[in-house]
């Protein structure tokens, strides 16, 4: 079989619908030496992500987890695109990498990236609004998103901003992580890719973060959690199994993605 043809089997063995499928994904940064030419940073034969599921993506630092997220969501910077090949099937859209980030958003896939890229001068609520894929989503999910934001702000430490109209820059790292998560989870996306979302959080805020995720995570959305910290994956596993979702863990090693226990 041609390795670049995506297997569009739309249902998983558990009956869940396919959200995203990737086939023959290979990536190498530009400027690789002749010795490294046969070595791919990412070499993923196939990957299938279904609804109502939780996926852990483990791996040591520097193995390419963030690069994988950037490739999947079309946000890899142009100068560092390197050598990229492979096919994707996101919802009803199929194509070859690199994928246009607008398509990713349109088909209902949202990523929370590792670096804390937000809009400090805009209000907290405006930052959340910027996660919305469309005006229709704002109309439909807006009231619930605002409510979640208010509840979350009320739970923050006393010295933190309590008003959604406050500038985002007034929040601590913990507060910002919560807002970043609400921005992604509140708008009814079908797949959330969370790249090291708890990296700057102390244990108390990490627990709060998973509590918030559990509150906002509605079916049929799926979550892909990328983290180097095993505790994050244990927490996600517990969250998924408690809510009756399918849980799978993958480890990225030597460019390959292998399912693990």
């Amino acid at each position, binding site marked *: 079989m041609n390795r670049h043809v995506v297997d569009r089997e739309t249902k998983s063995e558990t009956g869940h619908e396919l959200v995203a499928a990737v086939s023959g994904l290979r990536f190498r940064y530009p400027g690789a030496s002749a010795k490294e030419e046969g070595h791919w940073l990412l070499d993923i034969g196939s990957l299938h992500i279904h609804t109502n599921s939780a996926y852990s993506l483990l791996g040591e630092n520097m193995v390419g987890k963030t690069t994988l997220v950037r490739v999947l*969501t079309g946000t890899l910077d142009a100068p560092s695109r390197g050598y990229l090949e492979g096919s994707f099937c996101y919802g009803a859209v199929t194509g070859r990498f690199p994928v246009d980030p607008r398509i990713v958003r349109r088909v209902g896939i949202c990523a929370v990236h590792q670096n804390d*890229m937000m*809009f400090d*001068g805009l*209000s907290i609520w*405006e930052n959340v609004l910027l996660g919305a894929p469309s005006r229709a989503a704002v109309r439909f999910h807006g009231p619930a998103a605002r409510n979640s934001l208010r509840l979350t702000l009320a739970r923050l430490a006393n010295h933190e901003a309590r008003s959604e*109209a406050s500038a985002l*820059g007034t929040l601590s790292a913990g507060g910002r992580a919560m807002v970043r998560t609400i921005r992604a989870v509140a708008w009814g996306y079908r797949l959330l890719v969370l790249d090291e979302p708890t990296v700057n959080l102390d244990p108390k805020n990490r627990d709060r973060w998973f509590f918030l995720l559990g509150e906002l995570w509605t079916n049929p959305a799926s979550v892909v959690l990328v983290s180097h910290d095993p505790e994050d994956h244990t927490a996600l596993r517990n969250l998924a199994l408690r809510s009756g979702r399918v849980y799978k863990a993958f480890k990225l090693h030597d460019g390959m993605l292998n399912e693990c226990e």
Partner: protein
Amino acid sequence: MRVSGYAGIAGWRLLLLSVMVGAAIAAATTIGESRSAADSLSVVVASAAPLVLITLAATIVLSVGDLDLSIGGGYTFYGMALLALASLGVSAPAAYVSCFALAVAIGIVQGQMIVRRRLSPLVTTLATATILFGVSLLIEHWMRLRAEGLVAVGQGGAAAIPVISRTLPESYRPIILRYAIPWALSAIILLEYWRRRTLWGLQHVAVGWNRAAAQLAGLPSAAIRTRAFLMSSILSFGSAALVISGFQRGGWDPRAGAGLELIAIMCAVIGGTRIGGGTIEPMGAALAILLWEALAHLQYVSPLVGPETQQLVIGALLLAVAIVGARSTASN
């Protein structure tokens, strides 16, 4: 959809600008030759109205973190093109539509060159301005320009709402453009609504605030930046169209817009728009250009006030804005 006002909005700035405009108007009536404050206000508002569009053009581009130095060149060229078409016997509506299409094309091409080709906005828009000034001079050199048709459109017609001009003293009426005020007011209201109440407006300032974050968030940064240059070009056309069909009564200087872009950028910044992008203050920009015109009026009606007053006051305000901006950045 209700989008809250963005953080750090400087209400005090609007108040200060309003007070300064009021003071300049009051000075025009007490030490100048204006018969009443209403007269002065009418003249200032009417003469500032076309410039409001120019200032909004600069504001829109600044708010996405870019710079448009072609505003003055565009203003000159669109005016000259309107005159040229009218002189060739093209009807006024057809001339307006043709020049509007030209403004759209220039805005899109300029935006695409800067966004897709990654050219420097400063150099690209400066080059565009220079070319447009050159083409305007060529038109003036090669054509015999007459524009009675365009003047007729400006002086009356279905869309004119002469709310302010009725209150003007007779001596000012010939130079007052009745179209300009409702158009300028509409543009301010539309932009305020667009920014405060729509997702598009929010995405626009988000791109200006942090372009990398906007890209990661999946916002269409390239389209938003191109749209900013498009809107700027259309507003420059609008301003030229308003002026040429009223104020100028058929004449047009091929250097009419020289330096306008710098006045527009100054007023946009004084009005509260960050030079690096991320905020947009249409009302503040309009008040700043109103102050600019109020100072010009004061100089016109009073022998005690020289041309240096306008430059000194606006320059000092700009410096104050830079100092306040630097302090707030440092405190963040």
